[in-house]
């Protein structure tokens, strides 16, 4: 396996010492098929143990390691360093969130918004003895939106959210789509009322940063536009 020299700049911030985040440069040699997470591990384990970042599954399913690399939100474990040309990497925490330490951001607001749209099945009808019957095409409609791993890459990439932190954001709205378009769910009107708000669905200006950032390649903006039509139909 070939080795390669790279220069990594990481935005560091220690709340106990620093007033402002600052850039720190690392020169290191890594395997040429490394992912961003491999590089961070290499730095953390062998060069600078004080670097803080979130990681867990290293197989793009836990959604811990979303961060901004060379100006784009990516999932560190899923992104090979050769996605970016040249041998320079600039790694920053997710934009739009508060920084707790180094690459660790405060996700409380993100999950608070997720809870606001009631991300669970709301039922009026009695629970059937066996399973809920759902036709394949009914499931196909929500299949892609249900695979969201809650990494926050989309919400953090959204310029509407940078300007207004009360905006629900693409991830929460996608979750709303997943339940509103679920044929088993009875909470549609309730959820539509929540997202049909001044900080709701209408703050989506179809900038498509979320769709570019999503590590699961979910067509978020497409689903949000279906939600817009649904909300309109509901209010007529």
């Amino acid at each position, binding site marked *: 396996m070939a080795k390669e020299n790279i220069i990594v700049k990481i935005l560091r*911030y220690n*709340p106990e010492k620093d007033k*402002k*985040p600052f850039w720190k440069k690392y020169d290191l040699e890594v395997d040429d098929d490394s992912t961003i997470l491999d590089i961070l591990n290499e730095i953390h384990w062998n060069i600078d143990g004080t670097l803080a970042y979130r990681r867990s599954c290293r197989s793009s399913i836990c959604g811990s390691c979303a961060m*901004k690399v*060379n*100006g*784009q939100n990516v999932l560190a474990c899923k992104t090979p360093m050769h996605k970016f040309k040249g041998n320079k990497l600039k790694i920053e925490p997710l*934009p*739009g969130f*508060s*920084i*707790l330490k180094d690459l660790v951001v*405060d996700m409380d607001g993100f999950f608070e918004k997720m809870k606001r749209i009631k991300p669970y099945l709301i039922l009026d009808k009695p629970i059937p003895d066996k399973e809920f019957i759902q036709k394949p095409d009914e499931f196909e409609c929500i299949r892609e939106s249900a695979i969201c791993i809650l990494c926050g890459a989309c919400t953090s*990439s959204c*310029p509407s959210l*940078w*300007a207004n932190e009360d905006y629900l954001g693409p991830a929460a709205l996608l979750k709303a789509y997943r339940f509103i378009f679920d044929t088993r769910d009875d909470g549609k009107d309730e959820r539509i009322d929540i997202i049909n708000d001044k900080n709701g669905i209408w703050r989506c*200006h*179809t*900038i*498509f*940063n979320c*769709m*570019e950032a999503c590590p699961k390649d979910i*067509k978020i*903006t*497409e689903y*949000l*536009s279906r939600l*817009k*039509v649904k909300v309109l139909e509901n209010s007529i």
Partner: protein
Amino acid sequence: MYKKTRIFDLNYYKFTGSWAWILHRLSGLALIFYLTLHIWVINTLTKGPDKFNNVMDFLNSPIFKFLEVGLWGVILFHAFNGVRIIIIDFFKGAISHKKIFYIFIIIAFVLWVIGGYRLISHIQWVH
């Protein structure tokens, strides 16, 4: 805890959608500016024919003809991107939004060249 106060992350990578959005906002502002100016020019009509003719003479200078060509481009972009946004929001255009953007940009560019030529071709250049 460190909280960023800036409202726009300038060094975030700008994809096609970002450019479309930024240019749409800027062209919108330019159009507001133009419309204000336009109302002011029309307003001079109420101050008698002499005043109006003076203003119109001033606006007939070549520099304003070129600004008009620019205005034509801004209008075309804002109009076509507006249609693109409607297609995205209501006619399932989100998946092919980049394709729609480039097609519309090409159409707008062709119209801009044709219209721009017609706007300046009749100017009598002073030698």
